[in-house]
């Protein structure tokens, strides 16, 4: 769907992107992660052809990115805004026509969306009369109205109240099910694990990690498990089939964090423990994307 190859972008005095390559396959929800100032917005602007890279190429569905692709991309920037003194309906029609829709088609589709989001009676309202959440709904409609194949959302959930954020999230998921590829950026990593198929981590203009969320997390597994048990406190003397990492006393028993021995399984651990205590809970400790990110950044230094 989108192939980003060796993109370099420099502004006077600083490098925004150095040699960034990414593959976004069709139908995915792709998360572009990184702290503020990492270069996410620069990359998004290049994909939207707002700015051009110093070097490197982008391919969209196999052809080199060009003006004709504008109509197949929907973009909601981080800094959202509409013309304050213009009526909402007319404004979205205008934005849709800039994306190549006809007047009649735009009107028809806006009516559909307004009904869906239950904002039918807003058509003639001016933007300045609407609350911020309402404006964002309108902006979302303007972003997806021309049924783009690729929807790019820069920090989509910042500024939405929880109810609207959930609503928009559901709409994004539905659009994705209908075939749209979603690319969004965020600096809040915890929000992406449930949502994204693939991610890329960008840090100080470099891509430091990318791939499928599951694969990345699997590759960061370290055979570490968490076990909660009740009964008398265990005393480990070194004969147990695992390495103890730490041990905490809780209200209903004890929690231990352990790492399996080379070649060992959780069954070995359970067989060792079950005769001595009752096990309440066992789960594998897989680092969150946030932890992976911090770990990765520390590695690079």
């Amino acid at each position, binding site marked *: 769907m989108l192939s980003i190859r060796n993109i370099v972008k420099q502004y006077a005095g600083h490098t925004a992107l150095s040699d960034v390559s990414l593959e976004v396959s069709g139908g995915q929800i792709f998360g572009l992660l990184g702290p503020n100032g990492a270069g996410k917005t620069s990359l998004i602007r290049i994909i939207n052809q707002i700015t*051009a890279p110093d070097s490197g190429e982008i391919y969209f569905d196999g052809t080199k990115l060009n003006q004709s692709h504008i109509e197949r991309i929907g973009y909601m920037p981080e800094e959202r805004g509409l013309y304050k003194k213009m009526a909402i309906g007319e404004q979205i029609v205008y934005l849709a026509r800039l*994306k190549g829709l006809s007047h009649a088609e735009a009107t028809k589709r806006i009516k559909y969306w307004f009904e869906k989001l239950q904002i039918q009676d807003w058509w003639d309202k001016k933007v300045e009369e609407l609350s911020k959440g309402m404006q964002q709904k309108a902006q979302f409609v*303007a972003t997806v109205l021309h049924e783009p194949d690729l929807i790019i959302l820069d920090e989509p959930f910042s500024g939405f109240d929880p109810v609207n954020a959930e609503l928009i999230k559901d709409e994004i998921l539905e659009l994705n099910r209908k075939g749209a590829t979603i690319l969004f950026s965020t600096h809040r990593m915890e929000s992406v694990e449930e949502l994204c198929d693939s991610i890329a981590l960008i840090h100080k203009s470099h891509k430091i990690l990318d791939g499928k969320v599951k694969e990345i997390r699997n590759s960061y597994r370290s055979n570490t498990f968490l076990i909660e048990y009740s009964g008398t406190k265990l005393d480990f003397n070194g004969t147990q089939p695992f390495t103890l990492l730490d041990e905490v006393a809780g209200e209903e028993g004890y929690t231990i964090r352990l790492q399996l021995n080379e070649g060992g399984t959780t069954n070995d651990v359970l067989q060792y423990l079950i005769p001595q205590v009752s096990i309440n809970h066992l789960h594998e400790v897989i680092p969150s994307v946030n932890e992976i990110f911090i770990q990765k950044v520390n590695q690079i230094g």
Partner: protein
Amino acid sequence: MNKVLLIIQREYLSRVRKKAFVVTVFLVPVLLLAMYAVMYLIYKNSSELNATHIVKVIDESGNFAGKLHDAKNIKFENLSQTLAAAKKDLKKDEDVILLFIPKSYDSPKSVQVLSEKKPNLTVSNEIESQMNDIATNNNMVAKGIDTAQLHNIRSDISIASKEVTETGDKESNIGASYGVGVAGAILIYLSLFIYGAQVMRGVIEEKTNRIIEVIVSSVKPFQLMLGKIIGVALVSLTQFILWIILSVAVSFIANKYFNAPQSPILGLLSGLKSIQFGFIISGFLFYFLTGFLLYSALFAAVGSAVDSESETQQFMFPITMPLLFTYLISVTFLAQNPDSSLAFWLSVVPFTAPVAMMVRLPFDPPAWQLAISMCMMVIGFLFTTWVASRIYRVGILMYGKKASYSELVKWFFYKE
């Protein structure tokens, strides 16, 4: 290109639909109508200006009686009454003016003009000038110059300025040309500022609203800038054309209903008939349009470099300077020396030409100068639009950064 049309359409409609636009369009003809009405009322009430004044002369010196000749609006009558008796009669008729010349009239303020109402300035001026002529004649005769020689010495000079043209001598009205030139310069100066500032405000609005990023993901920054400039240009043209049409209509109505053939003000207006209004108006539209394209591109670049209107000051100064400078020079020096070399150079430099040329147009500048000036305007606006668009495309995406001149230069050299 289709997208530029869409932008033009939005920029145009969003401005034309505003109440302020409609009000201004109709305000000017209403003011013009009010002006006609006031002129008409002044004329009606000032009929005494045209009424014939009867001046009764009591000449104790005997040097003037009979030599004063009737002039426009003045009729002299000799009176052989005493001053005291005449004064009594004066109160009966308020239109009568009494001129009293004592035996010795050399001392200051010895000659008196008496009337029931305040004496009319034109009448007293006429009397004074005639009496001075007569007194001078009398003095010359007294010194031994005979009357025949006297007529030869006296000369009566009045200037009629004529321009030599191929079709023959043409009566030219310098006063009217001056007035039209200065009025055109003021109008173009104000309109360039008013509509240029509209473009700038539009750019700042898009930037502070953050809608700019949505728009430039659909169109190129240059298309947006071009669409905005053309949209505002069409708004201003609509305004001017409506003003011209409505003003002509109002003048027609005023002419019909306030018709006053001998009104002195209408007489003054007839001086304007020597001006070729078609030529002036097309000149105005050309210089306004090219000047607007030139300046509004710069205004757009300024708007893109700032986050709010209050920050525009530092960049506005160099833009407004050439305009203000030419404006000040134009209404004073240029209007009096429309063919000087300074006038030529100012009307060739694109930054100053719109104002300078407006002053010169009523004085029929040479065709080759007009041609150079017009070419320079076109080159000028293409150049500034190019420079401005390079700053604009970077500036509109820079938030919360206070731009300096060196930064603008850097933006200009950005690749894309």
